[in-house]
């Protein structure tokens, strides 16, 4: 069982592998699979999810086993080779993750019944003839089953090879667990003995896992941890701080200070963020501050800033992030006042990919603005500043469950935040569309009208300025796509980011209307003015006629 930080970031892993009876090498294979998994899983990056880390490690094991099979007798004889089943449970935080291939089984033990959680990958030809459909070492690639669910204290899990579960039933397991109350190793030994006594010829192995207590929810842990940390001293270039050497100041704002630093152990450059003096007095702001690294660790995308590897215990409160060399999007806009459509599309698509990575984890960025997007020399785009992120999993059951707080730059925040409806993924789409519009047109689509909204009824009053007025050289369909993405009502925007990105390249028929736009739609004010003028003239003419009669 791992200790300390590793327990938090990687959790507890339990694995069971079983060879095939026809192959002598299979024994080696199953042993190698389990040992490799337990060793390598704990060496993977801590910002990886359990699923990704386990898949990576098992793919490597599989390749090795497959190579061994190819080199040995198994190359021509499918019955002999480095083949084994593999099932593992990883308990991390308050979540259980299952990885499974082959016909070893994972059960959840209930009083009086066994709930099978894994599926047997077994191809059945007849009662006599059955063989493994999927296993480690059979092919160059392995297809793993993955599932994850919340853990509950008091649950018991049973991992068993076919030599064991074939001879045991729920009543037997129940009885043994009752007898050896609490002593799981003894219960496991007794279950194996029972299976062998029933006549199991195959290797019988069982593992029993009981969840005795769960850690506090991760975010609460984060807060508790924060309370034990001291506030960092003012950082100066050349100073040594927590194993980093400060190189220079990158950015100072009223909320935080960012310094470029070098990790003394690895020589890597990192961006260290420390809270500003004002922030230090507000616990809720500090919670948001530490959230940034938490989010950065969990989102794995080339277009979202990553957290720096942090394996040392900390004494001070700070956030260590990847250092991205480049310019902000706001600088890019100054440098390219009239960019061509393709350059803008490339940036928008990359930001969208980063946002999708956040949305897949039920996170909203909430503070998307040009200053929070960095473009490096190669043109790769990354979203930075995740401190305003809304994480659905963390705010469940709290007052902010619906993402109502306005945390981002007001000019880029979607109208629904101002009317009190709260943000959704469509709100991040709105912010992205505002940036797209600004990149192309150099202005905000609604000017400063959006932050002045207070009531959902005001939404209709928002006046969209057509992009064609600013850039007549751009196609009309582009304006229609942006107008849809910038619709004041979230429900009438594109349904997903991918749809918006797709529309920017291949507009659908709804945007390709060649019919010239009527004046009423193009410029309603001008239309009504002209109408009023016409009526005025008509009135004057009629009045004149009336007077001339008398």
């Amino acid at each position, binding site marked *: 069982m791992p200790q300390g930080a590793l327990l938090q970031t990687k959790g507890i892993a339990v694995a069971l592998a079983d060879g095939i009876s026809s192959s002598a090498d299979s024994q080696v294979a199953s042993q190698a699979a389990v040992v490799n998994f337990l060793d390598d899983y704990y060496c993977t990056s801590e910002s990886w999810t359990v699923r990704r880390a386990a898949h990576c490690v098992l793919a490597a094991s599989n390749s090795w086993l497959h190579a061994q099979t190819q080199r040995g007798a198994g190359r021509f004889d499918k019955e002999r080779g480095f083949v084994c089943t593999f099932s593992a449970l990883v308990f991390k935080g308050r979540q259980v993750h299952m990885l499974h291939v082959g016909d070893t089984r994972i059960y959840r033990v209930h009083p009086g019944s066994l709930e099978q959680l894994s599926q047997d990958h077994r191809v059945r030809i007849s009662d006599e003839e059955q063989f493994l459909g999927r296993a480690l070492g059979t092919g160059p690639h392995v297809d793993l089953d993955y599932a994850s669910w919340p853990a509950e204290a008091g649950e018991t899990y049973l991992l068993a090879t076919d030599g064991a579960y074939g001879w045991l039933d729920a009543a037997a397991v129940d009885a043994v667990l009752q007898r050896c109350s609490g002593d799981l190793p003894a219960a496991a030994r007794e279950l194996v003995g029972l299976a062998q006594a029933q006549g199991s010829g195959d290797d019988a192995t069982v593992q029993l896992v009981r969840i005795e207590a769960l850690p506090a929810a991760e975010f609460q842990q984060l807060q508790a941890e924060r309370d034990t940390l001291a506030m960092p001293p003012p950082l100066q270039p050349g100073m040594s701080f927590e194993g980093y050497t400060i190189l220079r100041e990158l950015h100072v*704002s009223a909320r935080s200070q960012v310094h470029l630093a070098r990790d003394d152990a690895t020589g890597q450059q990192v961006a260290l963020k420390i809270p500003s*003096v004002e922030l230090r007095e507000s616990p809720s702001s500090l919670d948001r501050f530490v959230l940034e690294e938490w989010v950065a660790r969990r989102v794995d995308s080339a277009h979202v800033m990553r957290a720096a590897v942090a394996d040392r215990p900390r004494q001070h409160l700070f956030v260590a992030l990847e250092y991205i060399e480049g310019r902000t999007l*706001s600088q890019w806009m100054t440098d390219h006042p009239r960019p061509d459509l393709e350059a803008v599309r490339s940036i928008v698509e990359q930001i969208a990919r980063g946002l999708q990575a956040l949305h897949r984890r039920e996170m909203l960025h909430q503070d998307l603005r*040009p200053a929070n997007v960095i473009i490096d020399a190669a043109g790769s785009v990354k979203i930075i500043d995740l401190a305003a992120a809304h994480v659905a999993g963390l705010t469940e059951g709290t007052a902010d469950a619906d993402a109502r707080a306005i945390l981002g730059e007001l000019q880029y925040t979607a109208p629904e935040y101002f009317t009190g409806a709260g943000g959704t993924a469509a709100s991040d789409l709105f912010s992205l569309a505002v940036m797209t519009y600004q990149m192309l047109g150099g202005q905000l689509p609604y000017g400063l009208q959006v*932050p*002045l909204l207070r009531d959902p009824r005001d939404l209709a009053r928002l006046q969209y300025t057509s992009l064609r007025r600013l850039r007549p050289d751009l196609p009309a369909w582009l304006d229609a796509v942006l107008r849809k993405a910038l619709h004041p009502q979230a429900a009438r925007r594109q349904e997903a980011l991918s749809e918006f990105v797709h529309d920017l390249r291949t507009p659908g028929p709804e945007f390709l209307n060649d019919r010239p736009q009527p004046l009423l739609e193009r410029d309603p004010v001008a239309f009504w003015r002209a109408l009023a003028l016409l009526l005025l003239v008509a009135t004057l003419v009629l009045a004149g006629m009336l007077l001339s009669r008398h």
Partner: protein
Amino acid sequence: MAYLAPAEFVTKMVDAGESKMLMSTRDTLIRAFMAGAILALAAAFAVTVTVNTGNHLIGSLLFPVGFCLLYLLGFDLLTGVFTLVPLAVFDRRPGATWGGVFRNWWLVFVGNFAGALTVAVFMAIIVTFGFSEGPNAVGQKLGSIGELRTVGYAAHGGAGMLTLFVRGVLCNWMVSTGVVAAMMSTSVSGKVIAMWMPILVFFYMGFEHSIVNMFLFPSGLMLGGKFTLMDYFIWNEIPTVVGNLVGGMTFVGLTLYSTHYKTAPNRKVSVKRALA
């Protein structure tokens, strides 16, 4: 009492200016009205203290209570927005335009004036028993202040106008320093101390504050001061507003912004030149 480094509070100034520009009309008006009213009440209080003790210094020492209160309550004075709001344009914040700045200034002016005028009417009622008798000592003082500071300037012609303008500049230099100083600290006591000093200086020296004058002069007109509404606007309010604008923007907003926000790179003194 924490102290914020200048680089931190200057970004706070720009952020504050930006958020004021983005504030809805309703909020801007309400906050400006309350600020004008509280400051006017403090001015009435300071005049009362001065009359009762016969010492202008004691009145000046106590006058900052009003300013501290309205700042802590998050209300906006015209003098403060003169300093802060243009910074959003200078910093090229998205969407920030001079149009937005003038909109904010105009709304705050209207709100401050309405607030100060309301208190002026209330005070006139108090010092005259609901206009049933002549003004008491405080009322007479309020009535006479206006004369010297309108007709008095007018008597000097162009020189008077220059004096008035410079007094306006000096006033907002001090008052906006108070606004900014309050951002340097994170605690209430720290903010109050930082604001108290420059406000005391401005009131004792008799500098011209556009919002205090929005109270003093209408009061004077109501309580029998010998000057006209035109005198008040031409020989006081308008030059004061312009002076306040120049003083706040140049001496406080732009200086802090250019030195602490757009910091020039440190000059490197070569060893040879340093030794020579």
